[in-house]
């Protein structure tokens, strides 16, 4: 579903590589933690996958699209197949929970009856059916992140990318959030979570791809993550 073939990424000429010769394949329906210290290249991988940036060298393939040859006008088509979740939630503060999620479908030109059906369905998936009329500032951090996940999933994309989704949350809430991502994964969605949160990685025991200074140093099924070791190196 997502393939990195010998990918190197430099943000500017002469800069050190943010990713160096990265070679990884993530299959359909997999759940992968991409782990590593800050600056190890996790977010860069995410940005390359949604074509926020183009790889300096190598090929990135996502959902059947070769991103190195994808014309600009096809980028929206790619992005409709990927849901994205960020550390800072990125909700629209002037809209209710319901409106925040409906916004995605409105932008994509969905009909009203489709929106009326999909929004409650998605809110149920993340357990927020009772908070539809709340404003984001009335919600806890965990609830806001659940709204963000609902928004990412309302269009039913086959891939979900989450960049540090638990970065602003306490350990218990973090676990709830990853449980939701796990539940989404069980419905067949490919889920990639970039994180440096050791506890969630060690609790959920999924495939772990570890980055250090832009290189993959470990790719392990049902892996663990000891952040301290990495930080010391």
């Amino acid at each position, binding site marked *: 579903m997502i393939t990195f073939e010998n990918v190197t990424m430099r943000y500017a000429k002469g800069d050190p590589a943010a990713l160096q010769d990265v070679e990884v394949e993530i299959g359909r329906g997999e759940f992968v933690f991409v782990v590593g210290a800050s600056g190890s290249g996790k977010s860069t991988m995410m940005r390359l996958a949604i074509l926020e940036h183009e790889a300096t060298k190598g090929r990135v393939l996502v959902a059947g699209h070769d991103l190195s040859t994808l014309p600009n*006008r096809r980028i929206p088509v790619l*992005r409709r197949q990927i849901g994205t979740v960020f550390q800072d939630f*990125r909700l629209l503060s002037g809209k209710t929970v319901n409106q925040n999620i409906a*916004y*995605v479908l409105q932008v994509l030109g969905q009909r009203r009856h489709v929106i009326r059906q999909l929004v409650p369905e998605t809110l149920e998936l993340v357990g927020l059916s009772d908070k539809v009329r709340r404003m984001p500032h009335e919600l806890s951090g965990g609830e806001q992140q659940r709204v963000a996940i609902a928004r990412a999933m309302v269009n039913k994309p086959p891939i979900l990318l989450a960049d540090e989704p638990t970065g602003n949350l306490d350990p218990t809430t973090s676990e709830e959030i990853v449980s939701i991502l796990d539940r989404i994964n069980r419905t067949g969605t490919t889920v990639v979570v970039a994180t440096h949160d050791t506890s969630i990685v060690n609790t959920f025991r999924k495939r772990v791809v570890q980055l250090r200074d832009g290189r993959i140093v470990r790719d392990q099924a049902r892996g663990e993550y000891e952040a301290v070791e990495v930080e010391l190196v």
Partner: protein
Amino acid sequence: MRLGFLLGEVGNGLRRNTGMVVSVVLVTMVSLFFLGLGLLAQSQVDTLKGYWYDRVQISIFLCTPDSTDVAACADGGVTQAQRDRLAADLEGLDPLVEQYFYESNEAAYDRFREQFRNSPVLDNIPQESIPESYRVQLSDPTRYEVVASAFVGAPGVESVEDQREVVDKLFTFLNAVSLSAVALAAVMVLCAVLLISTTIRLTAWSRRRETTIMRMVGASAFTIHTPFVIETVLATVLGAALAIGLLWSMVHFGIAGFLTDLLAGQGGMIGLIGTGDLWLVAPFLVGGALLLAIVTSWMALLRHVRV
């Protein structure tokens, strides 16, 4: 993107940026007002010139039944024999007379009606008092006197006129008005372009979260850009409407209402533009506003809103 949603986005954008939108409206209004003023000054020049101005140098007006106060017309209207005689004389002045045209009373009356369409004096002038004429084109316009002396006082000739002498000073003035107005308009259009770019930049900044989300979920560039463009188009079209309103007041009350009465009262007869001329100019103003809005906002969006 559905129309209702699009309009909602446009409404939100306008509400959030009221101050900037008002300034775009006003700057567009001022720039298009000056542009309109320049164009109207040009149509005033064209109205004054009439049909013959750019074609001939001299007009030889023939006697009408009313012009008995002129010695050469003591016998009343010009006769066919006199007409033929004058034509033969004109032929004789070749090569100085390069070309000449005969304008009949009917044709002259039609042109007169066209030229003075906005003037109340039109109703008081009967067709027979508009003279028929020979319009003469000279190979050397400076030798006007040669032709004038040959025809002044000839039987059947009421008067010989070099109309340019009278109106050219006025044209110089009107052309200066027209040029300054268009120059001012150009400066104001530049202001409008800069202001629209800045407004879009600010709007894009205040709406960056929405556009980021739109981008992430796979909205097309068209979907992301359209609300911005529509907001700008609405602001500039409103500006154009206000400019046209101002120009209309100027023409309706200032020229048609005031100047025409003033000139008629003084006994002067001068063809003036009316609101009809404004409606000919107005589509260009609205078109200009649309062009300004669409081109400028699209350029600004390419710079400030990533897709």
